[in-house]
């Protein structure tokens, strides 16, 4: 591992990055969910937490091993024995534990070193440390709006080969000091042996319901498990989870929440950890007032979600940045990437499809779908012929800003209005539902004569650019061609119409899928790390799994090989979510359809078999696929279709670990 972020551990509440020793101050940091501070440049940035590590020196030749199975980071010496380990407890959200052998040459107990100021501390954040008479260190990072408190204690145990056990508790906000102290007291009572054991048992239980096994492709196997590990680590199972683009694995993207969370990360959570998916949606629900205010500020009805958001729910998108010529340029995504409002609604609906969480609509989910649809009713405009348009937006393909009738945006809005109409019809509001359906029908999505969709109005008149002239793909094409020339060309940053196919599935025809795949894929430069996995999923679904596999591998390498050059600022959670979706929605071909689990697999030739575990409507499911057969096992009776034919899932009680963790909380 060459980046501290590849050693990241998180539990949805706190994330710890970097090595274990006192020297690794360059990358070591703790990130606390929901904690933000306003930095000197005026941007809201994640408020880092103090970390009371400094347990022995990390040798330059140390080997780091991230044990995905047990959620443990281990430091190994030359003979492969473990000299130190760290967990971020998934049982106790406030707790991290470090256990390290005391240096052989220095048998004295290492003092509990006061934590150093986190390296990513902004200039206007303060950092204070004090040591109480009880030997417990307390450290506080304070920003303009929030504070993070860490308390730590340690003891040296064992006479023959002494080891240091250190427990750190981190909390934020009002009462953080008391909360952290209480968490530390409870954890200390359990003891480090107990804390490690309960954490590892919890991880084993997670994997039992979430693993993907790929036989015949070790690289893909490693990548997909790495992705599942971090997807399961990024969100808490209670309250709200603001999952930033890099989660809790680094300071990148200022901890801000984008559509990455709603359409890339959430689908995996809905199928693997529904409680965590619910927490992600709770973040949106609690920011509905801000979304309503944003719509109202623009003179619109309904609710409009911001492109980037942090704690307040107001738009946190930077307004200006410097381009690579050093010139100050406006950043327009905050104003124009309005599709996120439909993306949030899509995430809500997707969660419902996968979990059948009957309480969700009444708990705010209804507003996420209906109030956002109301926004589109106001935002779209009829022309003289009665057609409805959405002008001046930027779709997922950010190489073309401020376009009219973006196909992705309008296809999502069309679906969104229809979904909201269903909710209104269930409420008995036929009149309003009808208006939404009428608007959906009137919404313009450009079509090509031979089938498929035009990316936006005027796209087909743009310049053809042969992607092969851009050099090795993927590439940030706008840097090669320049922004203006890229905008005049048909080069796409990432799937646009294909993204709509990916999200909407059977709502769009297979003929259109094939036509759009043929037209759009050759124009995609994959200049976004979000791109390869989704293209892989679409290719697999279209029956081209071997073509899909190359992009699947590419997506899997994004962080493991640091293809972006930015992994040091955090892991790309959306890419990981896309990778999971490519495996499950693409290769395994798993989709919910009207309450039934559809399985229509497309296995790459080089894969001998694929085994996928997930929860569907509260029922643990194992889908086993090879080139000769498909079997579906379920913890309880489940309606399933395999390649279009209804089948009965084999009931397998062994799929119900611990009596079925989610049964009491999710209505089947």
């Amino acid at each position, binding site marked *: 591992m060459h*980046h501290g972020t590849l050693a990241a551990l998180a539990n949805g509440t706190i994330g710890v990055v970097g090595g274990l020793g006192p020297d690794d101050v*360059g*990358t070591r940091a703790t990130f606390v969910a929901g904690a933000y501070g306003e930095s000197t440049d005026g941007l809201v940035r994640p408020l880092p937490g103090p970390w009371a590590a400094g347990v022995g020196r990390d040798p330059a030749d140390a080997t780091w091993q991230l044990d995905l199975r047990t959620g443990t980071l281990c430091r190994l010496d030359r003979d492969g024995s473990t000299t130190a380990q760290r967990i971020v407890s998934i049982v106790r959200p406030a707790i991290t534990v470090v256990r390290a052998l005391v240096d052989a040459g220095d048998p004295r107990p290492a003092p509990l070193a006061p934590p150093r100021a986190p390296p990513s501390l902004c200039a206007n954040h303060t950092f204070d440390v004090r040591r109480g008479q009880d030997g417990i260190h307390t450290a506080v990072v304070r920003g303009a709006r929030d504070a993070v408190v860490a308390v730590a204690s340690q003891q040296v145990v064992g006479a023959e080969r002494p080891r240091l056990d250190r427990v750190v508790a981190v909390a934020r906000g009002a009462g953080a000091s008391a909360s952290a102290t209480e968490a530390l007291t409870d954890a200390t009572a359990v003891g480090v042996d107990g804390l490690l054991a309960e954490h590892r048992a919890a991880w084993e239980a997670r994997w039992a319901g979430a693993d993907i096994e790929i036989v015949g492709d070790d690289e893909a196997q490693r990548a997909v498990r790495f992705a599942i590990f971090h997807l399961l680590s990024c969100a808490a199972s209670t309250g709200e989870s603001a999952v930033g*683009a890099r989660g809790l694995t680094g300071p*990148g*993207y*200022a901890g*801000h929440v*984008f559509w990455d969370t709603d359409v890339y990360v959430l689908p995996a959570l809905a199928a693997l950890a529904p409680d965590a998916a619910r927490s992600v949606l709770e973040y949106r629900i609690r920011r509905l007032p801000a979304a309503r205010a944003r719509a109202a500020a623009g003179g619109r009805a309904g609710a409009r979600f911001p492109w*980037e958001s942090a704690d307040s729910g107001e738009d946190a998108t*930077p307004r200006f*940045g*410097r*381009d*690579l*010529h*050093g010139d100050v340029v406006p*950043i*327009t*995504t905050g104003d124009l990437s309005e599709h996120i409002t439909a993306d949030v609604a899509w995430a809500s609906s997707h969660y419902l499809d996968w979990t059948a969480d009957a309480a969700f609509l009444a708990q705010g989910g209804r507003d996420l779908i209906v109030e956002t649809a109301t926004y589109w009713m106001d935002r779209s405009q009829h022309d003289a012929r009665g057609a409805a348009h959405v002008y001046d937006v930027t779709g997922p393909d*950010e190489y073309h800003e401020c376009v009219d009738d973006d196909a992705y945006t309008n296809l999502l809005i069309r679906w969104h209005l229809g979904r909201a109409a269903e909710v209104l019809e269930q409420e008995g509001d036929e009149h309003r539902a009808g208006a939404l359906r009428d608007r959906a029908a009137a919404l313009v999505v450009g079509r090509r004569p031979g089938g498929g969709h035009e990316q936006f109005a005027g796209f087909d008149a743009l310049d053809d650019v042969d992607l092969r002239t851009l*050099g*090795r793909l*993927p*590439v*940030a094409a*706008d*840097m*090669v061609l320049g922004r203006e020339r890229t905008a005049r060309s048909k080069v796409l940053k990432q799937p646009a119409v294909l993204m709509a196919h990916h999200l909407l599935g059977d709502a769009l025809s297979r003929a259109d899928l094939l036509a759009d795949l043929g037209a759009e894929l050759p124009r995609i430069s*994959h*200049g*976004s*790390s*979000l791109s390869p996995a989704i293209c892989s999923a679409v290719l697999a679904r279209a029956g081209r799994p071997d073509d899909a596999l190359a992009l699947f591998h590419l997506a899997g390498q*994004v962080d493991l090989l*640091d*293809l*972006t*050059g*930015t*992994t*040091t*600022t955090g892991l*790309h959670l959306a890419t990981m979510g896309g990778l999971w979706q490519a495996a499950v929605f693409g290769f395994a071909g798993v989709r919910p359809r009207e309450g039934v689990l559809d399985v229509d697999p497309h296995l790459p030739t080089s894969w001998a078999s694929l085994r996928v575990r997930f929860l569907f409507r509260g029922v643990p499911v194992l889908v086993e696929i090879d080139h000769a057969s498909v079997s579906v096992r379920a913890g309880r009776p489940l309606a399933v279709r395999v390649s279009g034919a209804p089948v009965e899932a084999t009931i397998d009680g062994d799929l119900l670990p611990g009596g079925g963790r989610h049964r009491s909380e999710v209505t089947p």
Partner: protein
Amino acid sequence: MRTVLAAIDGGPTAGRVLQVARTWASTLDARVRAVHARQGAATGARDAAFRAGVPLDVLAGDPPEVVLARSRNEVDLVVLGTRREVDGPQPAGHIALAVVEGAGVPVLVVPPEWVAAAGTRVRRILVALEGSAVTTASTRPVLRALADAGVTIVAVHVLTATGFPRFADHAFHAEEGLAAGFAARWCTDAPAEVRLRIGTGADAVLTAADAERPDAIALAWSQDLSPGRAAIVRAALAQSRRPVLLIPATPTGATT
């Protein structure tokens, strides 16, 4: 203790070179010595050194040979002035070129129009990094010494056609992330503010220098000015109105 060697002639630039040498010596906690290759009466050089309070060695011989020989004697940095040769066949005077090509230590070339900012310390350096082990290793000792002295290091990395990022996600954050990633990989020993730029190397570096207003532009180079080589160094010597710190690039980075 480090030594900064000011190589001066007897002309009007001598005082400015000595001033710059003193500024760098003050920053690096070094002593200043001056050297002059005598080709006649050394009155001008002696007067300039006397006024600056810098000990002067006056040696007979070919000026480049004198300076290079003296630089091999426990010297950490050579400072010399140069004539402006914007449209000439060479980017600087022949003495300066001979010294920078032959020196085993960094050489700070002071252009004729440079007027040091008020104050006695170096405050800000712009270093061009190509993102290679050789460049990083070569510049490491100098940058670390400057960083330890409180000098702000601004590293500019020019993205070339073969080095464009494969991915650049959301606006603003992507550029920040790329800069942070570059810093984590190539600027680990001396903290640097990284600026990523696009364009031809020389233009991008000089444009960045205009924007950043450093006290010098630092470049690691292979000390080879033969045709087709060292384009950025040539451009910097010919066009920069700020001192140019040329650091010999060696595979080991052992630049004293």
